[in-house]
C-alpha cells in the first residue's frame, strides 16, 4: 500500500516520465536525441526548478569524474553527500529523496519500503514494510533481515570508521554490543526487530522525529551476510539497485553495468537510463572542469562547483554560463567565535566581532556570489525546511558597522580592541582567503588577528576541534563549514550547536556553549509536530546568534555545470546536487 502523499507526488513532470519509463502508460514520451538537444534551450539556472533536457531514452555510457576519492564505496562506511547520491545506482535504502526539482526534492519517499515509517510509542519505534520482489544482483531475495544485518554491521566503527553514527546513538543497542561482524549471534532485539521477512522495526532510546531522513542514509542499504567481507566489502558491494559493479579499482576508477535482477516495477524512483556508468577518480580538478566544458565527461561527482580558474572562463561567456546552475546548498560557511578564550568569553566582545566583520569582503574571499554563496546573516541556510532569515547584526551594504563594533568593544571593556588568533584549514585556499579578509576587517576596530593554518585532516581532531588545544593556544576564531545530513533543523543544527556533544577531540561544535540553546535542541528533537518543531529550531538559531558564538559567513552556493548531452538533469535539494540516479545520455 502506497501512502497517499507518495502517490500524489507523482504529479511532477519527472515522475510522469519515470512511470512511462517503467512501462506504465500515461504521459507523452519525448523524443530524445538530436532534436532534443535543439529543443532544450541552454539557460542559466535551467536545471534548478525544472528538469533540463527530459528524456526516456535508454542506453549509452554516462561518464563521471572525481578530483578526489571516495571515503569508501561500502554503504556502511561512507559519509559524503555525493556518495549517498551516487550510491543509489547500486544500493537501495528504506527511503530516499523525492527525485524532483524544486523544494519538493527535500521530501523523502519510500524506496525499499512500501511506505514511509510508521512511528509508534510517541516516536520511539519506527516500522517499515519492504516491497515484495526485491532481489540482490545474484538473484537472492532481499529481506528485512538483510537490512537489519546491514545496520548491525555498520555499528562496528572499528571496521567501518567513516560512516555516520546516528543509528549507533539513536537505537537501543545491547550493552557492550560490538556489531554484527564481531557479535554474530548477539541478540539485538532491543534495537532492531524483524518479525517477518518484509518488516523491520527500529527501537530508539528516546523519541526521534526525523527518522525517515535517517533511513534514507546508506546504513539501511541491505547487505547479504553471506557475502559480507568486512573492510573488503567495498571492493565488491552486492548491488540491490539498478546497476552493479563490473570493475572496481579502488581510488582509480570503476564501472557499473545493469543489474539484471533489479526489477523496475519495484522502483518508481529510478529510470535507469544509461547502459553503463564509468567513474574516474583522482582527476586533476582544473582538468576535470575543462573536460566537463569540452564534453569529455558528463558529471563532476562531488558536486561542489567549479574551480576558480574555470569561473573566469565560464561566467563571462554567455554560452558557457548558460550551461550552469547556481543553487544555494544547505551548507553554512562560518566562523566559530570561541567563548573559552578571553576576552571572547564576554558576549560583547563576540558581538564586536559580528559587527566588525565585512561580509562582502568575506564573500569575495570565499569565492564570490556564484561559487561562494549568499551572504549569511543567521545559522540555518535557506534550503532547510522551516528556515527563517533574520539579521541581528545589520550593517549598511553588509560591509560591517565599525561604530556598533566599537560600542560593543567598549561594553566589553576593550575599547582599543584586543588580539586573538584565527585558525583555518591551510589546504583550503578559500578558508585562507577568508582568514585574511577577517584580519583586514577586524583591524579596522583594533582587533588584531594572527592567522594560523592547520592541516585539514587534523583540523578537528588536533587543533580547532580540540578544546584543550584551543584554550592552550588562545584560538579565538576558527574558520568552519557545516553541511546538513538532511534538510531539517536537527540535521543541520544539532552537531554544531549542542554543547553536550563536545568531547576531548574531534568536535564540530567549537563555540556554542549555551544551556538555553541545549534546552531548545532537546525540545525540538522530541517534537513530532512538524510546524512546532520547525519553529523551535528557528528559536535555537536566534539564541545562537544572540550568543554571537557563530559568525555566519555564507550560505553556500555552488556553480554546477550540466554535462554536454546529458538528459534528465536537475538539481535536487535533498541531495543538494544533481540527482544522479535520474541522468541519461543522448
Amino acid at each position, binding site marked *: 500500500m502506497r501512502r497517499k502523499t507518495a502517490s500524489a507526488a507523482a504529479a511532477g513532470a519527472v515522475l510522469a516520465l519515470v512511470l512511462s519509463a517503467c512501462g506504465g502508460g500515461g504521459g507523452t514520451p519525448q523524443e530524445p536525441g538530436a532534436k532534443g538537444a535543439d529543443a532544450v534551450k541552454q539557460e542559466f539556472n535551467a536545471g534548478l526548478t525544472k528538469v533540463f533536457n527530459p528524456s526516456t531514452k535508454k542506453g549509452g555510457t554516462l561518464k563521471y569524474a572525481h578530483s578526489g*576519492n571516495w*571515503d*569508501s564505496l561500502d554503504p556502511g*562506511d*561512507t*559519509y559524503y553527500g555525493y556518495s549517498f547520491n551516487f550510491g543509489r545506482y547500486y544500493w537501495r535504502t528504506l527511503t530516499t529523496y523525492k527525485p524532483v526539482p524544486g523544494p519538493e526534492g527535500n521530501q523523502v519517499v519510500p524506496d525499499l519500503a512500501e511506505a514511509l515509517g510508521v512511528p509508534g510509542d510517541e516516536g520511539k519505534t519506527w516500522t517499515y514494510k519492504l516491497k515484495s520482489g526485491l532481489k540482490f544482483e545474484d538473484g537472492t531475495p532481499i529481506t528485512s533481515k538483510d537490512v537489519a544485518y546491514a545496520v548491525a554491521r555498520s555499528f*562496528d*566503527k*572499528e*571496521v567501518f*570508521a*567513516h*560512516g*555516520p*553514527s546516528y543509528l*549507533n*546513538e539513536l537505537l537501543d543497542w545491547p550493552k557492550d554490543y560490538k556489531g554484527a*561482524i*564481531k557479535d554474530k549471534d548477539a541478540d539485538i532485539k532491543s534495537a532492531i526487530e524483524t518479525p517477518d521477512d518484509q518488516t523491520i522495526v527500529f527501537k530508539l532510546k528516546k523519541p526521534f522525529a526525523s527518522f525517515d531522513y535517517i533511513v534514507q542514509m546508506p546504513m539501511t542499504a541491505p547487505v547479504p551476510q553471506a557475502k*559480507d*567481507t*568486512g*573492510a*573488503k566489502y*567495498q571492493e565488491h558491494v552486492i548491488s540491490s539497485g539498478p546497476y552493479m559493479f563490473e570493475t572496481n579499482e*579502488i*581510488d*582509480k576508477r570503476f564501472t557499473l553495468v545493469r543489474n539484471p535482477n533489479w526489477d523496475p516495477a519495484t522502483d518508481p524512483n529510478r529510470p535507469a537510463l544509461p547502459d553503463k556508468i564509468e567513474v574516474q577518480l*583522482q*582527476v*586533476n580538478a*582544473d*582538468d576535470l572542469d*575543462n*573536460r566537463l566544458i569540452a564534453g569529455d565527461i558528463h558529471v563532476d561527482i562531488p558536486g561542489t562547483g567549479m574551480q576558480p580558474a574555470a569561473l573566469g572562463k565560464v561566467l563571462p561567456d554567455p554560452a558557457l554560463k548558460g550551461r550552469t546552475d547556481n543553487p544555494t546548498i544547505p551548507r553554512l560557511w562560518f566562523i566559530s567565535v570561541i567563548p573559552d578564550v578571553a576576552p571572547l568569553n564576554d558576549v560583547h566582545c563576540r558581538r564586536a566581532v559580528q559587527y566588525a566583520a565585512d561580509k562582502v569582503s568575506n564573500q569575495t574571499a570565499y569565492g564570490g556570489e556564484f561559487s561562494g554563496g549568499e551572504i549569511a546573516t543567521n545559522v540555518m541556510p535557506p534550503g532547510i525546511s522551516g528556515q527563517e532569515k533574520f539579521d541581528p547584526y545589520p550593517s549598511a551594504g553588509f560591509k560591517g558597522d565599525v561604530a556598533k563594533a566599537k560600542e560593543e568593544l567598549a561594553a566589553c571593556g576593550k575599547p582599543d580592541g584586543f588580539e586573538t588568533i584565527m585558525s583555518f584549514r591551510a*589546504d583550503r585556499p578559500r578558508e585562507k582567503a577568508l582568514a585574511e579578509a577577517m584580519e583586514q576587517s577586524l583591524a579596522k576596530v583594533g582587533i588584531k588577528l594572527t592567522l594560523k593554518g592547520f*592541516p585539514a*585532516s*587534523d583540523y*578537528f*581532531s*588536533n587543533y580547532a576541534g*580540540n578544546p584543550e*588545544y584551543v584554550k592552550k593556544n588562545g584560538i579565538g576564531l576558527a574558520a568552519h563549514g557545516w553541511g546538513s545530513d538532511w534538510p531539517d533543523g536537527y540535521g543541520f543544527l544539532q*552537531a554544531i550547536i549542542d554543547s553536550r556533544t563536545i*568531547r*576531548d*577531540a*574531534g568536535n*564540530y561544535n567549537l563555540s556554542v556553549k549555551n544551556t538555553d540553546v541545549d534546552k531548545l535542541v532537546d525540545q525540538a528533537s522530541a517534537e513530532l509536530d512538524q510546524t512546532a518543531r520547525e519553529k523551535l529550531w528557528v528559536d535555537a538559531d536566534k539564541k545562537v546568534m544572540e550568543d554571537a558564538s557563530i559568525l555566519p559567513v555564507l550560505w553556500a552556493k555552488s556553480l554546477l555545470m550540466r554535462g554536454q548531452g546529458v538528459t534528465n538533469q536537475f538539481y535536487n535539494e535533498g541531495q543538494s546536487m544533481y540527482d544522479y540516479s535520474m541522468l541519461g545520455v543522448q
Partner: protein
Amino acid sequence: MLTYVIRRLIGAVAMLVVVSMVTFAIFFVVPQLAGATPEAFASRYVGRAATPETVQLIAERLGFNDPVVVQYARFAKGIVVGAEYDYGTGVEHCPVPCLGYSFLNQQPVWPDLLDRMPVTFSLALGAAIIWLIAGVSTGVVSALRRGSFFDRLAMGTALAGVSLPIFFTGMVTLVVFSYGLNLTAPGGSWTDFGENPGEWAYNLILPWITLAFLFAATYARLTRAGMLETMGEDYIRTARAKGLREREVVVKHGLRAALTPILTLFGLDFGLLIGGAVLTESTYSLPGLGKYAIDAIANNDLPKVMGVTLLTACFVVLASLIVDLLYAVVDPRVRLS
C-alpha cells in the same frame, strides 16, 4: 666482487632501517612531543562526526595505544615475514614485503606502489633519455668551442634552466601548450604504455621535456666542465701526439673519461627520480609515486608514506650500487673491495 656486493647490500639494508626509523619518528615521535594522544592520531582516520568511542576503537585497531617501538617493530615485521590483516569477517595474509594497509581506505600499500611505479618510471626514463642526449651533447660541443657564441648561448640557457623552479615551468608550459595551443595533453593525463604507446608518449611529452630541461641544464654544465678538464689531461695530448684524428681524440679519449663522473650523478639522480618526482608529478598531476607521497602526507596516511619513502630509498641505494659496479667496469683502476 661477490663479497663486495654482499657487503654493500648489508649496508643498504642498514640504511633502509635508518630511513624507515626516521620516517616513523617524524610521524609519531614529533607529534607526540607536541602533545598528540593516540586518539588524536586515530581521529584522522575516522569519518566526520565520529564519536569518541569510534575514535577509541580505531586507535586500538591501528595500534596507536602501543609504545612507538612496538608499533615500529610491527611494521618492520610485516616487511620481513609478512602480516595478517583482519578485515572483519576474515583474515587476509599480507605477503612479504607487507608495507601495511592504508589507515584511510584499508587498501594494502604494496600493490598501490606497484601500480604507481610505471608512471614515475615512464616519466623518469623518457626525461632521462632526453636530458642525457641533449645535456651531454651540448656540454661536449660547448667545451670544444669554449668561448664561442654557441658556448655562451648554451651555458646561458643551462644556467637559466637550473634557475627555473619546475613548478613554474610546468605551469607555464601547461597553460601555453596544453590549455592555450592544445598541442599537448592536459594535466593529469596518463595512459599505460601497454595500452597505447602513442598516447603514452603524447601524454608524457610535456613533463618529459620540462623535467629534461631542468636536468639537461645541469648535465650540460657538468659535461662541459668535465670535458674541459679531461681535454686538458696529459693522455689527450698523448692521443693527439699519436696522430689520432680529432674526433677520435674527443670521443674515444676525452668523452669516455669525462662521462664517468656523470655516470655516478646520473645513477643517483635517476634513483631519486624513479622514487618519485614530487614536484613534476604534482604540477602535471601525474599519478606517480611522488604524487602518491604528497597525497599520503596530506592525508597523514603513514603506511603509504612509509612505503613510498622506503621504496625511494631502495631505488637510490640500488642505483648507487649499480653505479659503483658499473664504475668498476668503466674505469679499470677502480677495485671493488
